[in-house]
């Protein structure tokens, strides 16, 4: 079923990077494999070399410092993020998002880095990380670079990794005071891939107006989509119900969603309105309480 490949199980990032440098485009990395094995079974992907990084324990960590923010090792499993007390306390939206990501079995083995690098625009973590202004640390044998989470996805299942690069860390800054973030997705059953998902972050200024806003949608385009026009609807205004509705409507016009068995383009656009508004409302409540 899965096409044969040559298998490596490096124990360090350095070892993994030298294998990548050697085999480049012919190699693929597998972390938890909850996404890549699906496409390998379908033979949509038939790598010559498979580099299994699941055993690199150095990339399995959650660190928090108020100044530096949150650092998540790329090989941290979803379940660890969901259950982390420090994430629940300071970045609750990440824990909530993980709680609705697939099933416990998938979360027990799949990693956040693997999810992001798979580049599926329907994935949940990318949108939430964009709303949180996260950055990604990429490493190659030549060195490291940092990219904005927002810049990482290039197209459907394509990300900004060079053939010799791997994702090593997710960096989430501590949000400014009076910031609230929420993620809402449309599921038929809990844990489903969202038919549409919306992550919204709102920062209130000293007068209670909207100082800053970030809106990112899942499954609404060929990449996790930042809805910049919808953000502008909120920024600088005192948010009321009408404005939240407007933000949803504008975000919906920015979306170019796919049509599939779960929903038509028209349905996804309609639901984008509903879920952006819902997430924005919750983000606003949280910003007021923060």
């Amino acid at each position, binding site marked *: 079923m899965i*096409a044969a490949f040559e298998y490596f199980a490096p124990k360090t990032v350095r070892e993994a990077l030298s294998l990548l440098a050697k085999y480049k485009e012919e190699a693929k990395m597998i972390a938890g*494999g909850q996404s890549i094995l699906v496409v390998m079974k379908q033979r949509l992907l038939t790598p010559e070399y498979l580099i299994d990084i699941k055993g690199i324990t150095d990339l399995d960590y959650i660190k928090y410092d108020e100044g530096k923010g949150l650092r998540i090792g790329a090989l941290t499993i979803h379940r660890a993020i969901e259950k982390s007390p420090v994430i629940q306390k300071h970045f609750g939206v990440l824990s909530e998002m993980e709680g609705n990501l*697939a099933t416990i*079995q998938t979360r027990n083995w799949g990693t956040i880095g693997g999810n992001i690098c798979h580049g599926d625009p329907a994935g949940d973590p990318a949108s939430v990380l964009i709303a949180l202004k996260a950055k990604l640390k990429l490493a190659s044998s030549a060195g490291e670079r940092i990219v904005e989470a927002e810049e990482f996805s290039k197209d459907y299942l394509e990300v900004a990794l060079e053939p010799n690069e791997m994702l090593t860390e997710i960096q989430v800054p501590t949000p400014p005071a009076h910031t609230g973030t929420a993620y809402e997705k449309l599921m038929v059953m809990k*844990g489903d891939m969202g038919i549409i998902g919306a992550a919204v972050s709102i920062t209130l200024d000293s007068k209670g107006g909207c100082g800053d806003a970030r809106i990112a949608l899942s499954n609404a385009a060929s990449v996790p989509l930042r809805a910049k026009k919808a953000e502008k609807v909120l920024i600088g205004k005192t948010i009321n119900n009408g404005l939240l509705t407007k933000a949803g409507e504008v975000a919906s016009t920015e979306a170019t969603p796919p049509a599939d068995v779960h929903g038509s383009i028209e349905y996804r656009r309609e639901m984008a309105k509903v879920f952006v508004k819902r997430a924005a409302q919750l983000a606003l409540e949280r910003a007021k309480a923060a």
Partner: protein
Amino acid sequence: MKGEMKELKLTVNGKPYELEVKAETLLVDLLRQELKLTGAKVGCLDSACGACTVNIDGKAVRSCSVLALQANGREVTTIEGVADGDKLHPIQQAMIDHGAIECGFCTPGMVMSAKALLDENPNPTREEVKEAIQGNLCADEGYVKYIESIEIAAREMRGGQ
């Protein structure tokens, strides 16, 4: 080299194994075809149904979505390793006594998800029980009796409390 046999050391149901496998072998195929442990079922082979659920280092995972080599150095428990000799595990016993088992195809996966839950959380809420078996589909729609059985087993395992 592509296609060569790779060394794999793991523990399955408490028994250590040293094996040679092809790199593309899925854990479920290793268990069922090499080790003849056919309790874990292949339903969808696509990480959707949960019938292949086993525990790796005590956590529920889908053995159709893990390469056998990824279990290297780890401890795998399958449904065959749950009973204590002839004495069924309280989860198994509760499912039989309470009539939770219909066709039985999803049962091994249900037991393994329930076992991972109760080993970690002996006194789960109903929501936590539901969440634990959320990734185990039952074609007979027998979810309520499964949920109740797991609660009965949890009480039994806590010594009737």
